[in-house]
């Protein structure tokens, strides 16, 4: 018995998806209720939904672990897959949904305090919950059709969330650019679905894995490969399709920047990884992905060096981190995928922490310009400490979680004989420390006049950043649980094919 059978033998949904969908639909009504009663009902509801989805992920984890071949297959209304759309959940889906739900919970607590003085808060909570629901759907999807539907759900909510503060021109401009590029990518994704359907006659991942994998390349499969890269690459900000990101991530409200950088772009990367592993052999996509990885991390790091805007710098740093993750994908081994997914979780913590801490600084200091924030660190020691730890993690300093995953990513490239990729990656990592340390130095030097007499951010916001700081350090000195969880996820992706196919064909 998986999820909740809403109608007997009818609609079955995994618990996290069910909770966040129902929670999102109920939020506007709770919002009206809390306005009438004057109590903080909607805030409580928002945190409750996020916490319950995290609990649902735990229940799902136990179920997938108990399932005989490690795959849960859920479908609805009579038709069995491959004829109907379905959700197929393996350890990788559980792992990704854990990253999403964990960051979602922390961000939801943070945004209560952050959005306190904004209007339309109930709409904001609704959209955030829908975006999280969309991401759950993507990582649980068992066929491309289901993936596409949830892909658009995530996309639509994120366009509106980026341009949420519509009284300013910045968010509107960024949101429109984001929509234009992402919607074009959506059309490319639809085209790649059509091509896949034309080549194989199915859209189900299990059936796809059984069809064109291992066959020699034809012009059609090359076209399919490029449309997949464009379709997923725009959302996951692979250079040269990244240009929306440095606009959209800084202009969004800080909790949304944390979610977008922490999990949304990684969900895009998840889609790319899953599809490439399902449809192609690793030897096919090794070199193109490696080239994209080099381009992505170099461009991300070089442009981040030039930024004077704190959040914009973090956005470029996200692009660079996507480049590191692509190194693991191009290796194409279990070890590489393990590094990739470990880095997805670690990056969600580190970049989430960086954006939330930067959000606190901006909230108090009222500017995003790094030079204008000079000396604010003395007034806000805890937040600045969090920013410092996250920067160390993003740069890959030992004793933070970023070191572990970067080590795995780069050594996986050596393992498959691509030492040049490792060298470029390590050089990029060293380069990235230049801009991280510059920010820290500016923040803790002598305060300028406008930064004197400030207080620490609201308690709730500080509490969230402190918790995330501790998580980053904890998984740096004791990486065992995260590493083994990521390993089982990578195993399920690379070696669990037979179980994955078997669940469909039976």
């Amino acid at each position, binding site marked *: 018995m998986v999820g909740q059978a809403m109608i007997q033998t009818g609609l079955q949904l995994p618990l996290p998806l069910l909770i966040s969908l129902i929670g999102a639909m109920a939020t506007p009504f709770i919002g009206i209720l809390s306005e009438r009663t004057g109590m903080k009902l909607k805030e409580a509801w928002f945190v409750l939904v996020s916490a319950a989805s995290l609990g649902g992920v735990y229940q799902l984890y136990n179920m997938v672990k108990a399932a005989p071949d490690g795959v849960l297959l859920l479908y609805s209304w009579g038709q069995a897959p491959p*004829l109907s759309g379905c959700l197929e959940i393996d350890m990788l889906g559980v792992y990704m949904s854990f990253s999403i739900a964990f960051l979602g919970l922390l961000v939801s607590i943070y945004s209560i305090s952050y959005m306190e003085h904004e209007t339309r808060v109930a709409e904001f909570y609704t959209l955030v919950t829908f975006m999280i629901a969309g991401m759950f759907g993507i990582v649980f999807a068992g066929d491309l*059709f289901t993936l*596409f*539907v949830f892909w*658009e759900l995530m*996309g*639509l909510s994120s*366009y*509106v969330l980026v*341009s949420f503060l*519509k009284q300013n*021109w*910045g968010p*509107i*401009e*960024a*949101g*429109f*650019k984001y*929509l*234009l590029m992402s*919607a*074009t990518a*959506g*059309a*490319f994704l*639809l*085209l790649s*679905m*059509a*091509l896949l*359907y*034309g080549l194989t*006659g*199915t*859209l189900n991942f299990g059936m796809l894995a059984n069809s064109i994998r291992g066959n020699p390349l034809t012009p059609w499969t090359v076209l399919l490969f490029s449309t997949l890269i464009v379709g997923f690459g725009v959302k996951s900000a692979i250079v040269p399709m990244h240009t929306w990101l*440095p*606009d959209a991530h800084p*202009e969004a409200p800080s909790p949304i920047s944390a979610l977008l950088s922490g999990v949304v772009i990684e969900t895009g990367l998840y889609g790319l990884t899953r599809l490439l592993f399902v449809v192609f052999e690793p030897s096919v996509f090794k070199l193109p992905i490696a080239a994209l990885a080099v381009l992505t991390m170099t461009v991300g790091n070089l*442009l981040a060096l*030039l*930024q004077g805007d704190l959040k*914009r710098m973090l956005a470029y740093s996200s692009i660079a981190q996507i480049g590191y993750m692509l190194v693991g994908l191009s290796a194409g081994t279990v070890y590489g995928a393990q590094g990739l997914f470990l880095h997805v979780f670690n990056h969600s913590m580190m970049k989430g922490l960086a954006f939330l801490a930067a959000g606190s600084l901006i909230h108090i200091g009222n500017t995003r310009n790094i030079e204008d924030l000079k000396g604010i660190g003395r007034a806000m020691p805890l937040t600045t400490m969090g920013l410092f730890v996250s920067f160390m993690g993003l740069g890959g300093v030992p004793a933070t979680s970023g070191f572990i995953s970067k080590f795995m990513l780069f050594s996986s490239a050596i393992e498959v004989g691509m030492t040049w990729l490792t060298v470029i990656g390590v050089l990029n990592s060293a380069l990235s420390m230049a801009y991280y340390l510059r920010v820290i130095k500016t923040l803790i030097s002598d305060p300028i006049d406008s930064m004197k007499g400030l207080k620490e951010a609201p308690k709730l916001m500080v509490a969230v950043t402190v918790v995330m700081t501790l998580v980053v350090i904890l998984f740096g000195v004791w990486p065992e649980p995260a590493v083994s969880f990521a390993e089982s996820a990578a195993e399920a992706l690379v070696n669990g094919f037979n179980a994955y196919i078997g669940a469909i064909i039976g």
Partner: protein
Amino acid sequence: MYPITFFIVTTALLFVFGLVALTIKRDLVRLLIGIEILFNAANLFFVALSTQHVGMIDPLPQSIVMMALVLDGTVIAVGLALALNVFKHYKTFDIRKLRRLKW
């Protein structure tokens, strides 16, 4: 089986038209129409391919196309709402004026 070459050519042409519209047009609404053309090219391809595999018309692509129509309709609706907001701030629909965010 249904002759498919014609549809492949049409899809390719529509895709090129859509991409050209996205590249050279400056009006926000026209850009959104370009996206609509791209989506519909993919939809057409899907419908044409649905005759190719099993002996009958496969219902799966048809249902996907219905869903995709709804989805791209919503995307365009959000896009038009954003375009209205752009007009409020910039007093123009010209995409070239949307370049205040640099780098």
